[in-house]
């Protein structure tokens, strides 16, 4: 068990390292950052001097190492827009994003797991058809369209919800619903098919043959096993969800990291873009690592078998 965890931890760290490298390289593609910092009438020597100061004249690997060591300390430079440390800008938005993403995940799970279980257990019923329909449609609907449609219907037309901004439950509901749609759809599909597989397995028959009450058979025996593949997928879906926040936060004017990324991109505020993307990608990698841990706890087979 420990070896497995250690291996996964090392893999995660390596991935984070690669992430930082990719972020670094992408920003370099953008061209010379110096030209963005100087005024029109700067002379070549001014430019060269600035380059030296910023360390941009050094060979690339050296620049990367410096970038890496700075990043490890949380130093991503100063935001072009606000002149505050880039990482600080990003960190100040984290609570809002975390709140929205957390709520979205909660809603997704609250919808998809019961729906998937019910659909599997009452196969062929209306609930089953609804679940399958939802799974199909939910994954094909682009979240920016869903968000805008929801705003139009429920905020503009019916006035039930505010059209944007951060706030309490009424502000969070539509964006969380939008953010969680795709995850809900795929989780429903997965829960349903996992439950169907498990329900037909021998040990569930044996559980029924022991005369256990239906509820016990479904939850203690069937669901517990069916959730294993679902948890495995959950890590991936969390990543997609966080990615989607870039769009959803923009549409609903939710002041989170995703919205910050778009704003920063629009004004070419690279330090902030780098900081935000690095932080977000890192948290996704860590979230995946966490799901591995959870997975290990719920499936004893992983605990004892060497990976």
């Amino acid at each position, binding site marked *: 068990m420990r070896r497995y965890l250690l291996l996964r931890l090392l893999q995660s760290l390596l991935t984070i390292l690669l992430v930082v490298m990719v972020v670094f390289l992408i920003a370099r593609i953008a061209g010379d950052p110096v030209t963005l910092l100087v005024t029109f009438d700067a002379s070549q020597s001014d430019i060269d001097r600035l380059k030296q100061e910023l360390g941009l004249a050094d060979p690339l690997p050296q620049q990367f190492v410096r970038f890496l060591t700075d990043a490890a300390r949380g130093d991503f430079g100063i935001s072009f827009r606000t002149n505050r440390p880039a990482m600080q800008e990003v960190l100040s938005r984290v609570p809002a994003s975390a709140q929205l993403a957390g709520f979205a995940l909660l809603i997704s799970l609250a919808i998809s797991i019961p729906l998937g279980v019910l659909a599997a257990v009452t196969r062929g019923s209306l609930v089953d058809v609804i679940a399958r329909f939802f799974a199909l449609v939910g994954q094909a609907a682009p979240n920016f369209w869903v968000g805008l449609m929801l705003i139009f219907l429920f905020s503009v037309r019916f006035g039930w919800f505010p059209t944007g901004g951060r706030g309490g439950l009424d502000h969070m509901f539509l964006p969380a619903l939008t953010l969680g749609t795709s995850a809900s759809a795929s989780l429903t599909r997965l829960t349903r098919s996992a439950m169907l597989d498990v329900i037909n397995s021998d040990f569930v028959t044996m*559980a029924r043959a*022991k*005369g*256990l009450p*239906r509820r016990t058979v479904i939850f*203690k025996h069937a669901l517990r*096993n069916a959730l294993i593949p679902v948890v495995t997928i959950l890590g991936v879906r969390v990543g997609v969800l966080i990615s989607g926040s870039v769009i959803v936060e923009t549409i609903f004017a939710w002041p989170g990291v995703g919205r910050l990324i778009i704003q920063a991109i629009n004004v070419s505020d690279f330090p902030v873009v780098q900081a935000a993307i690095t932080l977000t990608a890192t948290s996704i990698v860590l979230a995946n690592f966490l799901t591995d841990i959870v997975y290990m706890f719920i499936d*004893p*087979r992983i605990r*004892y078998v060497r990976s």
Partner: protein
Amino acid sequence: MQAPQTRPEPGTRSPAAGDSEVLLSVRHLRTHFFTREGAVPAVDDVTFTVRRGEILGIVGESGSGKSVTARSIMRLVPLPGRIVDGDVLFRDEDLAALSQGEMQRLRGAHMGMVLQEPMTSLNPVLTIGNQVGELFVYHPERTPQGFSVRGAVLDILNRVRIPDAARRLIEYPMHFSGGMRQRVSIAMATGCRPELIIADEPTTALDVTIQAQVLELLLELRNTLGVSVLFITHDLGVVAQICDSVAVMYAGKIVEYNDVESIFDRPRHPYTRALLRSLPQLGTRMARLPSIEGQPPDLGALPPGCAFAPRCPSVVDACRAQVPEPTPLGERGGYVRCFVADDELQADRAAATRSGGGGDGR
């Protein structure tokens, strides 16, 4: 002239020796699967009886309906299957008429089940102690007197000869070998001292040596607990070892039903004979093991008449025209479904009468 003999209706009495009371009486059971292509009669007019302490073997190829029969008795027939006709009388209740809720009361407590595949019969994420203990948690009234749940679990695990049971309570199924897992399944099936165990090919997936141990275990449980066993298998060799009576199934019907000695010494149905012929015999030399020609039939597209006719070495025209009805065998409820066997029986009877009467009519 012989006095008219009153025989029981075929199958309503157990042909096995002994006089214990009847425990399970299945009459004219029909279970059909309603698929998109139509209704498939997986179990078609099946009648047999099991007494207390009796081990009945149900033999047949895959698709013969033996597993579905077992599941029907437990009322665990998977969709799209449904019992459409017949009675399943168990301890004075017709199981076919009970609701799932009522069946739940009986399962585990009065009837237990063991399945074929030890690798998938146990829940992989629960400990052995948890899974076996459930039985006692949900059937407290059937827990042996004075035992705690843990005590009862240890007791039954010891009974099925799991070594070092106390230490293994917290282990998971993956720590157990196939034979051990089958023992655990048997423990779960017998923990509450049920009257009936239904074993669906419990030894098919095991090595021969482990198989022998499991069979011995079942016999012992029958002897100590007085439990009856419905033993489903395709292996006549196993049947010879532990069964008291045998029902041979083909295409959803029981084609021959009798006590085990009669089945082996005087098989009447061509299918039974063919099955026996295909057993390897010690001491004889054969170039090839005889096998039955042809394939098991498609239950959804059965020919009119006897389902075995296309493959039967003794087939006559009558076989293809009509489905044979059960003809009694012996005095004790055995029967055979075969026109050819009917003729043979008549000839035997005639010969017996000619040679001085008093024949046993078999």
